[in-house]
């Protein structure tokens, strides 16, 4: 089921009348503008402009950063896009082709994006459904409260008072179910008197998506304290999860209440031809676009400066998670805190003492717009990226799980709390494609770097294709696709999606050097690649983008490539800019801490030609 995004288009231009489209993403660190145009009758990506985002003091106006990014495009193209008043010129149908653009749209995560608090009665049932709805709308979930969340009432209240969310989503109870517990959570929220993040001059939006029979009581309790709205119950019965009404309502309120109070957004809203969309929502649409065109199971990651967003589309089911404090700049120290310095050091092929590593990461946190200037600093960031994605995937799996609460009758709360149905359906053997986007992955100097980061973090199993966003424009194309899907897909296919290649990864473990698999690849020119591969190896076989090879993969009895332990697989493998990677390092990939470890890392890097070999060998 593809998620439907609601967008309000302010113009009614036909595709044929368009010549230039400008799209931007106003990120927490950088404002990224992309210009698209028709080349030989085909819509293509033309050029990028980037500039620091100016949502913060002293600027406090996102328009300044946007203009700076657009000016870069002007310099690089010679086009005149900004008018004398520095507003974006909209080209009229009969306008001069060298001036302005015909359409402008944007996504935004500046200033922390959409930050929500969610509540429900049972943590793993209604509160979790509320969390999914908020995440599905592209929000960051700051906290989840529930009757059984383990916090005392006063702790819940303290927490709510400290948070300043943009919005609250409250669920709880099936229709006709519990009243008392829903009211208990509502009374706690009301008593805490939470304030809106972007100012005390407006009521905090609160969406109630719980037991519909409680609505009059909720209205009575909360009506004059919140901007209250009601939508259909997220869990009308335990067996059904109905997320769409709550998700749509979040988007509407995001525009009405949140964006209109963010610095510079009033002006930005006037400039855009389409509603501003949260960045994760744009990214999510782009991921779904790939899944629907390819008809495959997909896992995607948007590795940003402040957050790590993970998307999965398995058997048509779309789930998005936003890990609010896992990122590569603002939140880089949180990755270090969550995973531990030792786990990061395992990916670093040179000696660095822990104190120095901590200093380096803390300096990145306080100066988040700096970029790696030396290869060593690049390797450090890549090490942290692996751990950030791993943590993001773990978080994602807790949400991409079977619906909980189905096999029980609602009796006592204690009974419900006993439910133990938590199990993810994310199975890497069933994942066909992994997609990466975000500054670090898109701007990696060598595509093999982003490929290996994703392999190490996701640990794909069996045969998996890997794609990457070329210059970070998936959010831009996601929002554009809501009105011009053909244009968006054309650019997406030709200029955005870089087919990195395929990875062949047998599942199992063995001793170093033991035989694992025989692989035969028949290349398009009928050249045959044949190899017996031992445990611990990772190798790269060149196979250009757009070409396919016939593969026969025969694993040992304790390894599985997809057909079961020891079973041969005959299939077709797709190439890419990196080629085919045969990863026989084992699944799960176990990293060692022995003294030879760094040499193993260097061997892996050199085998795929990931970093300049001269430099790596000197480490």
């Amino acid at each position, binding site marked *: 089921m593809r998620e439907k995004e609601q967008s309000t288009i302010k113009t009614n231009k036909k595709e044929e009348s368009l010549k230039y489209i400008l799209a931007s993403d106003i990120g*927490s660190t950088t404002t990224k503008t992309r210009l698209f145009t028709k080349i030989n009758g085909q819509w293509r990506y033309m050029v990028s402009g980037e*500039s*620091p985002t*100016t949502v*913060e*003091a*002293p600027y*406090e*106006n996102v328009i*300044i*950063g946007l203009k*700076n*990014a657009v*000016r*870069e495009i002007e310099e690089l193209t010679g086009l005149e896009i900004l008018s004398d008043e520095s507003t974006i010129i909209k080209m009229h149908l009969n306008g001069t082709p060298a001036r302005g653009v015909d359409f402008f749209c944007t996504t935004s995560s*500046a*200033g922390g994006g959409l930050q929500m608090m969610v509540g429900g009665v049972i943590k793993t049932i209604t509160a979790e459904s509320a969390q999914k709805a908020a995440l599905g709308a592209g929000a960051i979930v700051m906290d989840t409260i529930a009757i059984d969340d383990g916090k005392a*009432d*006063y702790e819940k*209240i303290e927490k709510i008072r400290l948070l300043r969310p943009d919005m609250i989503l409250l669920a709880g109870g099936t229709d006709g179910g519990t*009243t*008392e*517990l829903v*009211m*208990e959570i509502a*009374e706690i929220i009301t*008593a*805490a008197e939470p304030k809106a993040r972007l100012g005390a001059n407006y009521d905090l939006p609160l969406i109630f998506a719980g037991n519909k029979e409680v609505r009059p*009581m909720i209205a009575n309790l909360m009506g004059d304290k919140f901007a209250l709205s009601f939508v259909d119950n997220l869990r009308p019965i335990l067996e059904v999860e109905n997320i769409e009404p709550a998700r749509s309502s979040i988007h509407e309120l995001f525009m009405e209440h949140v964006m209109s109070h963010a610095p510079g957004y009033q002006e930005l809203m006037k400039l855009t031809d389409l509603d501003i969309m949260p960045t994760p929502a744009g990214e999510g649409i782009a991921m779904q676009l790939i899944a629907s065109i390819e008809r495959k199971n997909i896992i995607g990651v948007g590795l940003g400066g*402040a957050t790590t967003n993970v998307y999965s589309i398995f058997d048509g089911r779309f789930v998005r998670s936003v890990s609010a*404090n896992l990122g590569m700049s*603002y*939140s880089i*120290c*949180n990755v*270090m*805190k*969550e995973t531990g310095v030792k786990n990061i050091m395992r990916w670093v092929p040179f000696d660095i003492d*822990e*104190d120095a590593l*901590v*200093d380096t990461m*803390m*300096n990145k*946190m*306080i*100066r*988040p*717009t*700096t*970029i*790696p*200037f*030396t*290869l*060593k*600093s*690049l390797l450090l960031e890549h090490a942290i990226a692996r751990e950030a994605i791993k943590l993001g995937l773990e978080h994602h799996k807790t949400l991409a799980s079977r619906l909980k609460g189905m096999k029980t009758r609602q009796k006592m709360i204690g009974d419900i709390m006993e439910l133990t149905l938590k199990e993810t359906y994310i199975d890497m053997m069933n994942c066909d494609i992994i997609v990466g986007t975000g500054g670090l992955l898109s701007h990696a*100097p*060598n595509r093999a770097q982003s490929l290996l980061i994703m392999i190490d973090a996701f640990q794909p199993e069996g045969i998996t294709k890997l794609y990457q966003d070329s210059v970070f424009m998936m959010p831009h194309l996601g929002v554009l696709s809501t009105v011009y899907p053909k244009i968006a897909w054309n650019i997406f296919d030709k200029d955005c999606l870089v087919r990195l290649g395929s990875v062949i990864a047998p599942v199992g473990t063995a001793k170093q050097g033991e035989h694992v698999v025989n692989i035969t690849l028949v290349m398009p020119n009928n050249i045959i690649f044949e190899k017996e591969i031992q445990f611990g190896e990772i190798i790269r076989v060149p196979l250009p983008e757009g070409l396919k090879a016939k593969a026969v993969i025969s694993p040992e009895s304790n390894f599985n490539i997809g057909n079961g332990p020891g079973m041969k697989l005959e299939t077709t493998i797709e190439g890419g800019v990196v080629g085919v990677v045969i990863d026989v390092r084992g699944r799960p990939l176990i990293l060692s801490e022995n003294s030879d470890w760094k040499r193993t890392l260097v061997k892996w890097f050199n085998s795929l030609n990931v970093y300049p070999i001269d430099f790596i060998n000197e480490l």
Partner: protein
Amino acid sequence: MEITKDNLEKESSEKAFGYTPGLLVKKEALVRKTRLLPLPGDVLVEKGEKVDFETSVARTVIPGKPLFVKAADILGIKNEDLPPFMVKHVGDTIEKEEIIAKYTPFFGLIKKFVKSPANGVIESISDATGDIVIREPPVSVHVKAYIPGRTIEIIPRMGVIIETHASFIQGIFGIGGERHGELVMAVESIDDELTEEKICSNHKGKILVGGSQITLNALRKAEKQDVCGIIVGGVRGTVLENFLGYKLGVAITGYEDINTTLIVTEGFGKMNMSKSSFNLLKEFEGCEVAINGATQIRAGVIRPEIIIPQEKYFSGVGEMSSQGMRPGALVRITSDPYFGKIGEVINLPVNLQEIETKSKVRVVEVKTDGGNIIVPRANIEIVES
């Protein structure tokens, strides 16, 4: 006190590219601080009134904590039956241990009571949940002037704007909140470490200036001696974590439960304090200064600050504006291998250039003591002086 938005917008429209503004180090500046209450209340000073560090400029009361009492459970009755058993009602003031509800079935043979857990007022009685909400007494909150000067604007019911002439230094990172004290140089040069031997009992209530870094023992001793604040070039990340007792995840600080505010001017690690900051602080040794370690590197950036109020009036000094990145601008390099080096912008090439990582990025050519170097534009900060 802000870099004015008008200036920035004008400047940004004149230049091709945005840049990350650097940290301010100003000997003569017009500083304005907006002092606001968390909730509407009373403003206690007049427009034009002279204020000092400790002057209370506004006050309000914030509602006390709500306490939930599961009254129906305690009485053993149904939730909807609670209201008739209430002894006290919504709006009643109550004291701790006072009976607020009682149930005496079987002709009084069984007596069940609900007592208030705290002084306060009954805010609500819910027949849906059987809970009583008791609101603790309101808490009075005062906002102090923080800096000496004059109130130039009253924001009705919310606070004031105070203006003063001062020297002003921004730090890159800090912990601890607003404090004021006498400025004392604890080291002689920018590369000296601030060690525990350099801190003594005479430093109680003072703000000490260190050089390249402060040790963990020195930090602990400073807090024990009630040193009011420390300003230093660098601090090791692990020293800071050990001092706080926890690891920092994101740079949002200012509310730490510590006695000594710490302001770091350059970054993490051993880093010489910039000469301009050090010399400015040295010049005003003995003066009473205001400091705030609060830092927020995210929505609404807040940097730690050192404000040295001046008696004399700086003629011709307007609000602070940024110089922007252009040839001749003084910049600080903010990444290895040149971290901390100061130099002058000599060229801003338009075309992308390949750096050691093989990335192609926009660069800037900077003239330093060690010769001309090329660094990514993203990795420099303007030295705003």
